[in-house]
């Protein structure tokens, strides 16, 4: 290891005869050499060390890795048995693993005395059990401060309760007030439980955040009213906490109280009030007046609004019922903030989309401009609302603009490695991909669509039932039958194979082909994939129904006439008459249990085939079914059979009994 800096520093000190001397030039150590190599006595400029953070190298290495579409997300185990395909499995597996972690940390807490070894050097605090609060723990202000620092809400409240509040310094009291206002006096879900947060926030995000969870007359308000001298900071803490937890009215009251007391709100308080201005004022005009008032008072106080002020104001505007006014105000705000040099974040764009693209409103191309702008420069994450942008924008692409090119641009923006954080949580992710896939299935040809489908499904996204049905339908409408077997196996993996609507769609798609393709099946032993799929579906449904019967469970899956009809059609198309016979038996067995009719045209073809093969047994079954369902041409069919098939006595009897029982066409009509 050569040590140039050190060298140049001590060199002057060491070399007495003045051969070397070092000088500092523009902050860089420069060593000049006079004697040896005098012909090239150049300055040696040693470049400056490039400063880097502790994780910069790791981030640089991570940037070389792209998402691998053939493998699961890294939180899952990379093993065929353990790779989840359905969204239910993804959720279960991720949460099960976290439950295991929780169980282990519970054991660690319960048997804390066993986990006190100190192997690691330097010691890693996270591996040691959290110190428990006991009766003997000395209650000090420092302990309170420590709990505030490590955000342990319940413990902090406990310690605060034990302490004499007059002895606590005002600074600690203020930070405690901020602390419990922020957390609403409740312990938050631990930061460690990533999966639980990921899946829970999805459920929470579906509800609107208007719902108030703030603890009225709770500890925070009591501390506030118990303060000797009420400071503006105390007001700030309380107002921000109330807004964060949905107590808009209380926050508004305190805000007015604060102004009446002659205190000056700070930026965060102003932002909070801007956020709730859409709630405390009902009418559009009043909302705008309030926003204007707040912004002017900010200007008077010399507080420069930031991007969060913009987002909060736009959020309030997006609640306004009248679109035209909202649009105008939003445009004004955007240009005003631009003029004071506030760059919008993604959350801003979310609100803009909400304002400009209402469900029943006119079409607005604002998203195109937004995408163009963020393609040039992606704003960093600055606001909680930023993560809602991509799902909102993709929804917009799908339902509002119906623009597949724009959707692809949006997706390529999200796909770059550093933008993955913007996807938000599991709910927003599924909204995003659902919209994307629906749009693709509508707009793209089957080849291009399947390429994208294979990239996304199943590891990045698992389609829900209705999305999957749409996919099947789009494939079937473009007669791309070669993809249907793949979709069927996907249905198995996604646990959608017991949904009758999915099966209906799949069987419908199977019939859209034009018969066997001689290029695929060369070998005699080979089975055409379409035929194999049809057989697999049939045996699968039989199996499911059978196990349900054995285990005495009620399931929604039933054979229907159209399902069996489609199956029969495929079997006849591909010349698999044995399977066709099986279908006929199923039909005859179930008869009126079938919820829809077996198609007459297919039945006719089947009878023709029976006559060709001289198979009287199954032909009789077909007649039996047709007679029972009261199809019109039973008699003609029966006549053909009795003429062209050799029937034994029993069969003759049966045929005649069927015909005598069958209603004549005139009766049914």
């Amino acid at each position: 290891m050569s040590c140039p800096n050190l060298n140049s520093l001590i060199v002057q000190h060491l070399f007495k005869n003045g051969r070397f001397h070092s000088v500092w030039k523009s902050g860089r150590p420069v060593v000049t050499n006079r004697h040896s190599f005098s012909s090239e006595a150049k300055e040696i400029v040693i470049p400056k060390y490039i400063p880097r953070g502790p994780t910069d190298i790791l981030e640089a290495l991570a940037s070389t890795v792209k998402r691998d579409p053939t493998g699961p997300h890294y939180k899952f185990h990379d093993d065929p048995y353990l790779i989840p395909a359905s969204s239910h499995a993804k959720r279960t597996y991720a949460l099960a693993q976290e439950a295991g972690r929780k169980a282990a940390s519970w054991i660690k807490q319960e048997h804390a005395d066993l986990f006190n070894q100190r192997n690691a050097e330097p010691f890693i605090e996270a591996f040691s059990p959290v110190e428990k609060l006991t009766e003997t723990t000395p209650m000090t202000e420092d302990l309170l401060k420590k709990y505030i620092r490590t955000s342990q809400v319940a413990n902090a409240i406990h310690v605060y309760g034990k302490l004499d509040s007059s002895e606590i310094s005002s600074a600690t009291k203020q930070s405690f007030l901020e602390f419990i206002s922020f957390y609403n006096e409740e312990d938050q879900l631990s930061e460690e439980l990533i999966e639980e947060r990921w899946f829970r926030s999805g459920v929470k995000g579906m509800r609107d955040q208007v719902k108030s969870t703030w603890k009225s007359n709770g500890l925070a308000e009591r501390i506030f009213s118990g303060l000797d001298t009420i400071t503006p900071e105390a007001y700030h803490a309380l107002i921000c906490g109330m807004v964060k937890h949905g107590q808009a009215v209380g926050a508004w009251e305190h805000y007015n109280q604060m102004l009446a007391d002659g205190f000056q709100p700070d930026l965060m308080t102003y932002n909070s009030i801007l956020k709730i201005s859409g709630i405390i004022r009902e009418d559009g005009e009043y909302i705008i007046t309030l926003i204007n008032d707040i912004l002017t008072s900010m200007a008077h106080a010399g507080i420069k609004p930031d991007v969060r002020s913009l987002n909060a104001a736009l959020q309030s505007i997006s609640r306004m019922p009248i679109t035209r006014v909202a649009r105008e105000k939003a445009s004004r705000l955007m240009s005003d903030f631009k003029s004071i040099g506030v760059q919008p974040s993604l959350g801003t764009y979310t609100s803009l989309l909400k304002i400009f693209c209402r469900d029943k409103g006119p079409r607005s191309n604002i998203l195109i401009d937004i995408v163009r702008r963020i393609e040039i420069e992606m704003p960093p994450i600055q606001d909680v609302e930023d993560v809602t942008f991509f799902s909102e924008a993709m929804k917009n692409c799908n339902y509002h603009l119906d623009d597949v090119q724009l959707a692809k641009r949006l997706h390529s923006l999200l796909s770059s490695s550093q933008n993955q954080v913007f996807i938000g949580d599991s709910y927003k992710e599924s909204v995003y991909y659902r919209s994307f896939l629906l749009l693709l299935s509508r707009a793209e040809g089957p080849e291009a669509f399947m390429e994208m489908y294979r990239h996304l499904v199943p590891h990045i996204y698992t389609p829900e039932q209705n999305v999957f049905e749409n996919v099947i339908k789009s494939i079937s409408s473009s007669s791309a039958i070669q993809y249907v077997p793949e979709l069927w196996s996907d249905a198995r993996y996604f646990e959608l194979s017991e949904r009758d609507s999915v099966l209906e769609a799949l069987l419908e798609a199977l019939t859209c082909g034009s018969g066997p393709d001689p290029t695929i099946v060369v070998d005699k032993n080979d089975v055409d994939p379409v035929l194999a799929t049809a057989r697999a579906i049939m045996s699968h449904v039989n199996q499911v129904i059978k196990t349900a019967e054995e285990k005495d469970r009620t399931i929604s899956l039933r054979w229907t006439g159209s399902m069996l009809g489609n199956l029969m059609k495929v079997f006849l198309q591909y010349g698999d008459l044995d399977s066709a016979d099986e279908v006929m038996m199923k039909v005859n067995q179930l008869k009126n249990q079938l919820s829809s009719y077996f198609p007459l045209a297919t039945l006719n073809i089947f009878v023709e085939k029976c006559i060709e093969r001289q198979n009287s047994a199954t032909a009789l079954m077909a007649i039996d079914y047709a007679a029972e369902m009261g199809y019109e041409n039973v008699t003609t069919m029966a006549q053909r059979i009795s003429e062209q098939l050799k029937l034994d006595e029993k069969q003759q009897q049966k045929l005649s009994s069927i015909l005598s029982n069958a209603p004549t066409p005139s009766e049914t009509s």
Partner: protein
Amino acid sequence: MSAIVNLRVFRNFQQFVSIRPISNYPTSFRKNEEIQKVDGDDEFRSLDLSPNKSLNMRSYGRKVYKRAAVHPPRSNKMPTDQDWPSVWPVARSFHPASVPLPLHQGWVVPGATPPGKFANAELMKIPNFLHLTPPAIERQCQALKKFCTEWPKELNTNEKIENHFPITITTSDYLHSSPSLRDARARIVTLQLKLSSLKLDSHAKDKLLRLVKERYNPETDVLTIVSERCPLRKQNLDYAMYLLNVLISESWKTEPWENEKCEADMEKYVWEGSQSQRTVEQLLQRMPDREKAMPEVIEQYARNVTRFHNEGEDAEKISDYKESVKKLLGLQA
């Protein structure tokens, strides 16, 4: 053939139709049994205190899981032009379903095929370098380039580097597979320096060599100072620098007692001013006839005597010495 099969199925089918009640909500066979059992009892129905195993769900033994459909190995679906460093980004144990290579490992009798990659623990044991394929290394180097500074253009040869940066500091970092990252050996600092770069005069050099003793290697002209007495590397580095500093400044000093250095204190034999020179001069004074012709003879004699003292005694040097003495004294034979 197909006709026979069909007939058989047909018969079954008829039987089936005859027993099955036609209903949308089929009752299970088991339920029927259950009902029959209750009906078949005599008028006294026994109160069964122990759980009746035959009616208990648990009696069917351990629940057998309906196994979800296991995917085929994902290597089957991998395209040939995929981005392998993304598939295998970090070191991990081998997994057969993720590596699209037909691997075998294991010793078998000659001629047989070794065990394949599935369920092969040997493949999981050996460290693999699937994450360090040449493209991956290249890509990572590219990504790390932004943290590297350029090598100064002026320092393009080893001589120049030695000339401008004469001091070399060597330390070692030790990596263990253990929870501790400490190693006592990491504190050791080795400082190396070419003595010629100090430009010492003969006195200073002599003194320095006496001070450093075996730390100087005369063959390579390198002075090595190893410092390991302090607990931290930084302290050892400072100490090594301090030592070097002190050594050099001491060497340049001339203490009053240094003038007392006599011939016995010399580190090597020097002809000038030696007893031998004086003796030869005296001898030549007594042999005035030979005095004038002798400078090269005396020089040769001096060289041989010096070699004899400095390089050790052997037959060749003795004979050289003999020759020069003979020449000096003018002896024939």
